[in-house]
């Protein structure tokens, strides 16, 4: 499993988490700064289940997804009633609380040592798990967004009052998007655990939560393609910058990219459009006409 394939596996794993967060923060408009905590839950559950019950990895992943969704809904139930800014700080609190619990419960999670030596991916096995799962996640999420439930989530982001009057149970759909995002983050966490062969609290700090939501904003709120492309750019970015000599400028460049994109392209890379061949064809036609016109005069 070479270096670039390793980066590819990581990109896929974080793409799954970013797609999950884009459902909650992009489509549903509820910003979260604690979803790395749900990745941690997915990772620890999957590792512990696979290690203690000696079941195949995908059973562990399912268990991780389930518990992460359950906890997401449990925590979401009360906090989803409060308005946006309180919700952001509440999720920050949740992320930190999960980080502290994973440090403190040494018998369960191995605390600062981390949880290790469980059955994990060997060599190329990671790719055979991660890429198919990613494809399924993209297809299912795309269908979900284009279905009535996806439309309802976008409706409550656009105008909660109007959504109520067309009969949308706003609270229920906020819970659905919270559950959906926690499921995908749990799944991504599980995959990361088996790829890294160990789980450590330091892998799920608040900076990771911020990176997830920043990717969604840069990619474009309410666009699945935007989330995918943001993941494809932002995850390998630290690796690409590794080739540059100025290492210490890496984090400053990362912060600068965020500021510049928000200032000059607030709707993010892809706004809320989805990539399509027809869209591409129209774009090419428009540009070619402009070129021809310039050619004539």
């Amino acid at each position, binding site marked *: 499993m070479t270096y670039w394939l390793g980066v590819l596996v990581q990109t896929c794993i974080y793409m799954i988490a970013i797609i999950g967060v884009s459902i909650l923060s992009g489509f549903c408009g509820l910003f979260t700064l604690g979803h790395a905590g749900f990745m941690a839950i997915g990772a620890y559950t999957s590792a512990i289940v696979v290690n203690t019950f000696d079941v195949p990895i995908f059973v562990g992943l399912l268990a991780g997804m389930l518990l992460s969704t359950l906890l997401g809904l449990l925590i979401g139930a009360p906090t989803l009633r409060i308005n946006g800014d309180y919700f952001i700080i509440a999720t920050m609190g949740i992320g930190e609380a999960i980080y502290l619990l994973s440090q403190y419960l040494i018998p369960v999670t191995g605390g600062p040592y981390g949880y290790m030596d469980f059955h994990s991916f060997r060599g190329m096995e990671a790719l055979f798990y991660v890429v198919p799962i990613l494809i399924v996640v993209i297809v299912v999420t795309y269908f979900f967004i284009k279905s009535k439930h996806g439309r309802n989530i976008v409706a409550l982001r*656009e*105008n909660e009052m109007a959504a109520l009057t*067309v*009969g949308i149970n706003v609270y229920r759909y906020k819970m659905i998007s919270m559950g959906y995002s926690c499921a995908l983050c749990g799944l991504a966490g599980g995959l990361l655990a088996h790829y890294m062969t160990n789980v450590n609290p330091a892998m799920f700090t608040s900076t990771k939560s911020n990176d997830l939501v920043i990717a969604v904003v840069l990619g474009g709120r309410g666009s699945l393609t935007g989330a995918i492309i943001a993941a494809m750019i932002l995850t390998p970015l630290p690796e690409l910058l590794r080739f540059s000599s100025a290492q210490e400028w890496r984090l400053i460049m990362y912060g600068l990219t965020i500021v510049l994109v928000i200032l000059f392209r607030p709707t993010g890379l892809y706004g809320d459009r989805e990539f399509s061949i027809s869209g591409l064809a129209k774009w090419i036609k428009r540009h070619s006409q402009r070129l021809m016109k310039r050619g004539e005069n």
Partner: protein
Amino acid sequence: MSTVALGLYNVCKSFGGLKASNNINIEVLEHEIYGIIGPNGAGKTTLFNLITGVIAPTSGTIRIYDKDITNLAPDKICGVGIARTFQNIRLFNAVSVLENLMIACQQTIHYSALDGCLRTPRFRREEKAAQEKCMAILEKFNLLQYKDVAAGKLPYGSQRRVEIMRAIMTNPRVVLLDEPAAGMNEEETATLAEMIRMLQKEYNLTIVVIDHHMDLIMEICDRLTVINFGEQLMTGTPEQAQSDQKVIDAYLGVDDE
């Protein structure tokens, strides 16, 4: 005597000391176009908020046909067949006009999240049916060319009409229109009146309209109620309202002798 579609029985609402609505009694008959008029701040929109459950009345009951909906949550109100538009337009701006209407159909579309994710035949059937319904109404009001335009980018008049169409899409029995003619000139108000009358006939609805465009109300309303400072001045036909002294005083103001 035709049945009562929407009934408000001694409904009161007070914010602290202020009595926004004081003992309102209105009975809207089925398939009637009923007007509620009054000067600004008379408590008209508060009435709509009471009916649609956005705010709960201090006392009194609200019924639709025979069902008591006094303290029903806003998203349940749509289930009992009441749809509404807003004084300041509340469309799903970033989403296309067709999607706005499709969202409104969500109540009549029946498939689970799982069907949606796996695109089962049931999903395709329901979506196609809803899409056809929306395309039909768009065509009827020749807004089809705006089908894929983001709702927020439409001209003001068209946005008003899309909001009304969105209300219709929830298969309501009673439609509440909150100042539909606000900001419209003579000619637009006329086409709007025409549209409301045609909708009422086409979908045999009961319509309640709030406005202070007297010409719109006079033209399309069968009966109306005049409200001033939360008090119910009179109820009757538009002609009675024009000749009623109390209404004239309220509107033209009484020169205190």
